[in-house]
Every structure is written in structure tokens, then in C-alpha cells.
């Protein structure tokens, strides 16, 4: 029951902290008996899980199912998670594995309606993030769409998984572990090249690779 003032402070400062750090604290507090900490754990991790799972091109209903299955697995196994600090990785890996299996079984090819998403990109106001405010988002969207499916998936997983486990990602994507880093760099290069071709900028500098 004690320490509520501390908890409030943690919540206020958690906005700018990475999800894995917020999740680690929330999980530890929950294990220590703070029932409200589960809300913080779920709200810190669901956005990460959502984007990691959707990287496998699952439709919305399947993605929700995968995330719910992940949390059920968590409730059934949390006692065996050795290090509360690793809760984010545990959830992300479990969700990714389940998403991978689901996608493989269903052979889902088209999950997002590209036209619909492009419309959203063009009509919604840009996000407040400083880097994004200067970015032509629809150009970025088109640049991403031009990448291979593997590149899109890898970049989305790495973007949202604050502590990506390259060994497991390599297993799931059927790639040698040593190739994940170079593949990531190649995917970024291709994206930057596509954006530079359209004259788009990011963070105030032209995205044209080394040229």
C-alpha cells in the first residue's frame, strides 16, 4: 500500500521513458502487490506488441487474438520469468512467435488496405514529434511500401521493439543471425534512397545515404 507518491511520480515521468523500462517497473510493482501496475504494464506494452504483430501482415482481428493469447501465456507463466527487467522481451518474443505461426498457418498476404492507409496519411495532421513534423509522411509511406516485405517487417519490428533480440528475429525470419544487422542497414539505405529520389527530407537533412 505504501509508496503511492512514488508511483504517481513514476507515472508522470514515464511518458518519455522507453516502453521496456516502464514495463519492467510496472511488472516488478505488480509482483510486489500493486494491482494497478497491470494497467501500466499493458498500456506500455500493447502499442509495441500491436506493431510487432501487425508487421506479420495479420488482419486486425487476428492481431488482437495474437496479443490476447500473448497475455494469457503471460498470466500462465509469469512466475517463471526470472528477471522482471526482461518482461518486455518475453512479451515481444512470445507475440512475434505467435504472429509468425498464425501468419504461416493462414498464409495471410494482404492485411492492410494500402489505399485506405494512404488516404489516412494524407488527411491526418502530422504527429508532433520534431523529426516527423518535418517529414513528408506520405512520401515515407510510399518509400516503405516500395521495400520488400522482409524489409518492411524487419524495420517495423526493430522500430517498435526497443531491445530487439536479433538471434530470435533471425530464426523467425529464416535468416542467418549475422545478416540481420547488414540487412537492417540495407533496408534503411533503400528507404533513404527512395526518399531522396522524391526529394524528401528527414530531420532537416536530405535522405540520400552517403552521397
Amino acid at each position, binding site marked *: 500500500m505504501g509508496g503511492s507518491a512514488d508511483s504517481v511520480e513514476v507515472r508522470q515521468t514515464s511518458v518519455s521513458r522507453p516502453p521496456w523500462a516502464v514495463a519492467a517497473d510496472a511488472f516488478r510493482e505488480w509482483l510486489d502487490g500493486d494491482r494497478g501496475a497491470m494497467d501500466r504494464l499493458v498500456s506500455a506494452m500493447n502499442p509495441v506488441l500491436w506493431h510487432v504483430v501487425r508487421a506479420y501482415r495479420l488482419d486486425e482481428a487476428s492481431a488482437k487474438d495474437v496479443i490476447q493469447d500473448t497475455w494469457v501465456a503471460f498470466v500462465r507463466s509469469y*512466475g517463471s520469468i526470472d528477471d522482471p527487467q526482461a518482461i518486455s522481451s518475453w512479451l515481444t518474443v512470445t507475440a512475434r512467435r505467435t504472429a509468425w505461426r498464425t501468419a504461416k498457418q493462414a498464409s495471410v498476404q494482404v492485411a492492410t488496405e494500402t489505399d485506405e492507409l494512404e488516404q489516412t496519411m494524407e488527411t491526418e495532421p502530422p504527429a508532433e514529434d520534431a523529426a516527423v513534423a518535418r517529414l513528408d509522411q506520405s512520401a515515407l509511406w510510399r518509400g516503405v511500401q516500395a521495400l520488400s516485405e522482409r524489409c518492411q517487417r524487419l524495420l517495423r519490428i526493430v522500430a517498435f521493439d526497443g531491445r530487439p533480440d536479433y538471434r530470435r528475429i533471425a530464426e523467425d525470419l529464416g535468416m542467418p543471425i549475422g545478416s540481420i544487422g547488414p540487412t537492417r542497414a540495407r533496408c534503411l539505405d533503400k528507404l533513404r534512397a527512395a526518399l531522396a529520389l522524391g526529394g524528401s527530407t528527414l530531420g532537416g537533412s536530405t535522405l540520400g545515404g552517403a552521397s
Partner: protein
Amino acid sequence: MSMDRTSDDETFAALRAMWRQADPVPADLDGSVLALIDAELITSDVALLELIDEHTRAATVRGAGDERTLRFSDGTREVLIRIVPGPHGARIDGWSVPTVDGAVTLRCDGRRHETSAMTAGRFAFNGVPDGAATLWFEVGGAPSAGWKAGPFTI
């Protein structure tokens, strides 16, 4: 060909913002997950034992901390522990009724101490640091099926 780290970070920040905007998390996801977790916890096989009694006995040796005895129960299962402070952390001796034969784990301030239950449901931990703690008892070899006692402070 390689880009500096700041540039990568900016690109990933932009990608995150793009995907958040293009494919937002469904508004009802957190609520449905929390409801599911509540339902799973209620039907899970983890028995929650609450602190129902605590006694403190003044130290008999000068300079030593007070000895505390805590009793946890859920009405059918009971755990009794004695916490004796020491210069290198506390010693905890415990008993469970009925007897638990699996691993007993003490989680204290994010650290995990594990021991095997000794005969007749007895268990012990040495050198436990101060902090908020919970005890976990494994039953039948399944981490998801067992008892949890606490939280309590050391």
C-alpha cells in the same frame, strides 16, 4: 554507406510515428486485454495467501534487529515465516501447511532467491536484503500452479 546513429534513430522515430498514425492501436485493446487478464488470474491455479497476522519480538542481543513472525493464509493453506535481521541481510525460516515439495522462490526488490523446500514443508533463505517481498511456492512442477504469499516487507 553506413549512416550515423542519430540518423538511424531519427529514421526509426519517423517510422514509428508513421506506423502509429497509419495503423493505430485499437482503442479497445487495453480494456479487452485487462479484462482477459483478470479472468485468467481468477481461474488460474495460483492461490493467493494474504498476510493475516504479524508478531514482533524485541531482539534479545544488543544491536540485533527485532525478530518478526508473519502468517499468511487463504483459508485452506497456511505459510508461517520468521524474519531475523542480520548484518549481511535477513534470515528467513518458513513452514508451509500443507507441505509444499517444489521450489520456493523469494522475490525481493526485483531479485529472485530460490530454494528447494526442505522436509516437512520447511524452507529457508539467507542474506535477504531489505525491501518489498513476495514468496512463491511451486506445486506439482508447474510455475503457473502454486501459491503466492505476500507482499510483505523485510
